[in-house]
């Protein structure tokens, strides 16, 4: 341990815990604020002051329990911390009565209404440990170890938690030795490519000169994936440490974190962490007094999906339109500003410090031959427990979605899974048993991607989803190559026509022609654009054929193929539906009976939601005389 690091650690002190007064940790991240955590925090502060309680309140990142936001964690001196949630602002008074009382009154009441689990080895006061919770038990939290525990805006807490110990060790290592260790551990690209980070770094190490760039891809554009966001909002120093180590391993003395514009809190917390680290000598011209340099900068994107493609990201950093370029030259030869560069995903960097600290064998303890270690996944959709988890590569997707995630709310049947973002494709429920590593997904023509998994039930339609993803890809195509922008437009046209009842038998073949043509697109964006329809044709063939040949949507999701009809004109709930109907299509009154004007109706389904017993959802087109005729 270097003297500089030792003195930083000593100054940081021990990890924060409740010593002489209770400690209340409040999860404050984009996810929890969406559930009103900022309101809960304000109320907690006011109420604790009004009650005359001496409680230390600290804002922390996320434990990943998005389904239970807003979450808080209370630790009394000498006791284990207990995680509670959801705790909306309106329940704060009841909660404080139960767990803390006031200066004049002892706490009384049952806190188990909010309790999720004890963060520790054992239960406490009738509350089981988190490890007994289905969401928590199967996880192996390595990069998530400090997430939701430390204050992400405090360097001291990060240091007390062991951050920068790996950087300190790396400073005593030869660059090639670092690359070798990371390659031996099998740390692979977490953005979906899975390319060994150590091997990628060697390309950059071989490039001449100190003017090289280490770039962090935090343009997590895949909708439905929020792994990088939670990481940067909860433990930013882990990402910074990983990047600094990568800089030492490759001789790159400059780094940039490119964060998408939709993540303002990530930008703010990363900037704060970079400033703090630089002030402490953990970044800058003289890392921990070693004379080695690594300077880091945070750059905010401006809203473009293709900037998540590494050459698009580089173009965006240069101040240009974020248009991907044809490779080669690869970034290691000619990257940002024409200088050799290395691009890795945010999560990839986060895996570097623990791998370097504990060694390759420890890292390979989890995972598979193709994908070593653990992976963070964001799970959502028609799921009981949405959130972020970290499980070993090779875990079963069924376990992840049905046990950890709790399956479809209400116990309904899952229809399929949407992995890997808009370019990832679709799987049907029969593939729930797949192992979470790249090879089985690739075999089925889909991508595991960066870790977003969305479960959907029978309300979702495979053709509608394929149309949705094609629209997304069309909108986000950079427009440089005609193959991509024209091909995605053609897909949207054809799928749109099919969902409006204009399907033709030849479409089934023509969709394949567009798919094959798109394989000639310049970059992966165009090449992966048809994955959704290709997967729909492969895994939901019958459903696609029924749309095309019979003009039927079995899920009754495609609005062009259905019709709403009032079956009980005297149903009272129709009055509210008539008042809310966006096109005023529900005519009549309670006395004469109500009916839907089919010409005005846009099939939004609002009336069927409010009066399910009185409104039928029917197929719009008559049953064909003979299927396929």
């Amino acid at each position, binding site marked *: 341990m270097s003297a500089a690091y030792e003195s930083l650690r000593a100054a940081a002190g021990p990890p924060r815990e409740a010593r002489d007064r209770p400690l209340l940790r409040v999860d404050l991240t*984009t*996810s929890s604020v969406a*559930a009103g955590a900022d309101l809960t925090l304000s109320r907690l502060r006011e109420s604790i002051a009004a009650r005359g309680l001496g409680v230390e309140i600290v804002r922390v990142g996320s434990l990943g329990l998005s389904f239970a936001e807003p979450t808080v964690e209370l630790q009394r001196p000498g006791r284990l911390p207990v995680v509670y949630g959801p705790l909306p602002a309106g329940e704060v008074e009841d909660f404080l009565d139960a767990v803390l009382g006031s200066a004049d009154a002892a706490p009384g009441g049952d806190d188990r209404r909010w309790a999720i689990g004890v963060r520790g080895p054992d239960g406490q006061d009738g509350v089981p440990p988190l490890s007994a919770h289905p969401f928590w038990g199967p996880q192996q939290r390595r990069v998530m170890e400090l997430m939701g525990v430390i204050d992400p805006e405090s360097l001291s807490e990060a240091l007390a938690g062991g951050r920068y110990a790996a950087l300190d060790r790396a400073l005593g290592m030869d660059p090639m030795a670092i690359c070798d260790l990371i390659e031996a551990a099998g740390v692979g690209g977490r953005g979906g490519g899975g390319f060994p980070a150590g091997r990628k770094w060697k390309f950059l190490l071989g490039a001449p000169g100190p003017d090289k760039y280490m770039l962090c891809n935090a343009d997590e554009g895949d909708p439905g994936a929020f792994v990088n966001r939670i990481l940067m909002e909860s433990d930013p120093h882990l990402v910074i440490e990983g990047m600094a180590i990568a800089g030492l391993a490759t001789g790159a003395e400059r780094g940039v974190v490119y964060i998408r514009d939709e993540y303002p809190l990530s930008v703010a917390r990363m900037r704060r962490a970079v400033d703090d680290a630089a002030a402490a000598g953990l970044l800058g011209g003289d890392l921990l007094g070693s004379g080695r340099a690594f300077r880091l900068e945070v750059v905010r994107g401006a809203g473009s999906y293709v900037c998540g493609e590494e050459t698009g990201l580089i173009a965006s950093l240069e101040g240009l339109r974020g248009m991907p370029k044809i490779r080669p030259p690869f970034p290691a030869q000619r990257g940002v500003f024409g200088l050799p560069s290395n691009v890795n995903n945010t999560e990839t960097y986060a895996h570097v410090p623990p791998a370097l600290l504990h060694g390759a064998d420890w890292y390979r303890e989890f995972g598979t031959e193709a994908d070593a270690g653990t992976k963070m996944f964001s799970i959502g959709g028609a799921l009981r427990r949405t959130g972020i988890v970290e499980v070993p590569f090779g875990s079963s997707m069924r376990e992840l979605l049905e046990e950890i995630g709790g399956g479809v709310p209400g116990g309904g049947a899952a229809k399929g899974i949407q992995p890997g973002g808009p370019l990832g494709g679709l799987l049907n429920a029969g593939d729930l048993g797949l192992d979470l590593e790249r090879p089985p997904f690739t075999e089925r023509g889909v991508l595991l991607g960066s870790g977003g998994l969305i479960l959907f039930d029978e309300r979702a339609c495979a053709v509608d989803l394929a149309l*949705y993803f094609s629209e*997304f890809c069309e909108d986000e195509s950079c427009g440089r190559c005609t193959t991509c922008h024209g091909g995605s437009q053609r897909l949207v046209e054809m799928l749109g026509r099919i969902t409006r009842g204009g399907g033709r038998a030849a479409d089934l073949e023509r969709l394949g022609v567009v798919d094959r043509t798109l394989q000639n697109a310049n970059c992966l964006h165009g090449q992966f654009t048809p994955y959704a329809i290709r997967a729909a044709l492969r895994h939901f063939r019958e459903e696609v054929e029924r749309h095309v040949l019979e003009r039927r949507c079995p899920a009754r999701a495609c609005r062009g193929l259905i019709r709403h009809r009032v079956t009980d004109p005297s149903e009272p709930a129709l009055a509210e539906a008539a008042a*809310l109907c966006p096109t005023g299509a529900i005519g009549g009154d309670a006395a004469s009976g109500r009916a839907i004007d089919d010409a005005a109706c846009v099939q939004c389904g609002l009336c069927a939601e409010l009066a399910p017993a009185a409104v039928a959802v029917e197929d719009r087109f008559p049953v064909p005389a003979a299927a396929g005729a």
Partner: protein
Amino acid sequence: MSWAGCRGRRWRWSPRRLGISEAQVYGPATFYSEFRLTPPPATLLTWCSGPTCRVLGGERIKLILEETLGCRLGENGPGDAYGLWLGQCNGTCEQAPQVWLNGRVLGKLSLAGAARLAQRLRDGETAGAIAPAPPEAVEIQPALVRRPETP
């Protein structure tokens, strides 16, 4: 929603000063969705376009908002009093399907809930009357949402 300067065609001053062509400024200025040539309205309803919202009925919510507010996605309502814009998924999918009213997430929306929200906006209610102020006003630092600034 952030907004700084550059109304109408005033962006044209910068190429001359930077010694580059107009196209080199106009390209990036129109490529990225967060660069705009017109300011956002004071009340902005942002519809989340993410796939989790989609599988839970988001597309129908968009339809209801459009029909009730009288403007299409990406447009402002009558007199620019409010706007209905597209938002990219920010990963708060446990609240799906959702919209953001001046940055405050209104989640787990039903179709009827979306219609009621749109009617209140259409009838002139302010964002403050409908939902709590955006997080930044409630003391979160750093700010989660940036309000319109005067150019």
